[in-house]
């Protein structure tokens, strides 16, 4: 059974169609890469999956998350799905985290929320243990120091790890990662990708990985959906799309990526 399925998902701003007729589905453990250039509609699609579109944008069609319809439902009915079924990690952890709260206080929010949903009370001691466990899960050294720090006091890689820990704190079945490594240095990017790969594998999560960076997507996804001008122009397994792209847009995109990759020479 699909964990996530979209059928004819369209997004409009007034009479303007920004995303049109998007179909894809994800089963537990699946890894789908959503690739495309700026303005192709990939981030809007991700926001629509969680009912998070900004005011003025209207989604139509069907998005089913763990069997529940998202489109057309009031926010209070979608809210329990967020975090518990699907959680999201955004591109810029500086913008995603509150600069005025310690990382520990921010991490406590989803942990308390999950406990409340399960009807459990958390003592201060339990909460602290769970926060430390959440940071250890994303391979943060010295979790006590990081919990006491504000976002500006830790590195970009640590901020993104905390954002991933917050997303996973409600034990979701699906992780939506929107350009999660774009703002990071290349070696930090490699560490965060390895972390996501491990978490998805060990915990059986489904992953929707959104990026304009084709080599990054090729490294973490099993299937790819290519978006251009609000439409999915091609979908298939990573190896097939990268070796024999059919859509002209995909061919041009992969040719541009291949050219840069070739400039690096033989792989080590």
């Amino acid at each position, binding site marked *: 059974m699909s964990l996530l399925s979209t059928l004819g998902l369209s997004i409009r701003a007034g009479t303007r169609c920004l995303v049109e007729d998007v179909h894809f589905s994800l089963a537990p453990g699946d890894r789908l890469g959503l690739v495309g250039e700026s303005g192709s509609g990939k981030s809007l699609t991700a926001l629509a999956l969680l009912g998070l579109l900004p005011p003025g944008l209207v989604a139509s069609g069907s998005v089913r998350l763990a069997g529940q319809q998202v489109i057309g439902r009031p926010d209070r009915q979608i809210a329990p799905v967020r975090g518990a079924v699907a959680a999201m990690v955004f591109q810029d952890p500086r913008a995603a985290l509150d600069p005025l709260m310690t990382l520990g206080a921010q991490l406590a929010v989803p942990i308390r929320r999950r406990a409340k949903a399960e009807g459990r009370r958390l003592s201060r001691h339990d909460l602290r243990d769970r926060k430390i466990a959440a940071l250890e899960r994303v391979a943060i050294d010295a979790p006590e120091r990081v919990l006491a720090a504000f976002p500006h006091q830790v590195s970009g890689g640590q901020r993104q790890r905390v954002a991933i820990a917050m997303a996973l704190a409600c034990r979701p079945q699906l992780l939506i990662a929107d350009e999660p490594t774009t703002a990071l*240095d*290349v070696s930090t*990017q490699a560490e965060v990708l390895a972390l996501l790969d491990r978490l998805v594998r060990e915990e059986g999560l489904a992953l929707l990985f959104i990026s304009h960076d084709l080599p990054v997507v090729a490294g973490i996804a099993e299937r790819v959906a290519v978006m251009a001008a609000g439409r999915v122009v091609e979908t298939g397994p990573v190896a097939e799309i990268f*070796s024999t792209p059919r859509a002209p847009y995909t061919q041009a995109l992969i040719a*541009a*990526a291949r050219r*840069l990759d070739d400039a*690096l*020479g033989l792989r080590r």
Partner: protein
Amino acid sequence: MSLLALEQVHFGFSRGTKVLRDVSLSVTQGQNLGIVGESGSGKSTLLRLLLGLAAPQTGRVLSAGQPLDRSTMQAHRRFVQPVFQDPYTSLDPRMTVRQILTEPLRALGLAADPEAEVLRALSAVRLLPEAADRRPRDFSGGQRQRIAIARALIARPKVLLADEPVSALDLSTRASLIDLFAALSQQLTLVLVSHDLAVIAALCPSLVVMEQGRIVETGPTRQILDAPAHAYTRRLLASLPRLPR
């Protein structure tokens, strides 16, 4: 001939925090130079020193063989021109493209026919003459970066200092700008600062690798990519995501 050089340069913003340590390098005419490193490695600060926007605490910056100081700064400003990373913030949104492009002519006191120079610069970056009357908001990110490059070219510099000039752009736009930089390299020398080794490999035959304010490896780009000598360079290369074959 060395167009630009740093000799044993040290630089820090405050006491005790060294951003650049004992940095020496030389930019040779016709030999594009790439400077690669991660955030905080000092590569953008190095570019500021080459531009004359900051002065080293010790060591020297040489421009066309002359030490860079107040007496040589005016000539240096014509000699080198910058292109910055973000085409959305590096252009004044209130100005037309014509005003943006003629600003360096005015600031540098260059006696030239402004209209002819604007048309020449637009042509060099493959934009139509009609672009001159429009404002930055009318252009895409890639087109804005072409305008920023045209602004740099209008002073007819010998060296273009580009700080991550394509990293804010989409893949296909990035590819077309790499083509543009390659074409411009026929007439001037490019110093390209980037964390993206693939872009540097496509444009620069010489490479400097920086880590924590020091140059840890320098030499022909191909040679460094094929056989990196320093552990940091090896780690950088191993971290690069690659396309499946």
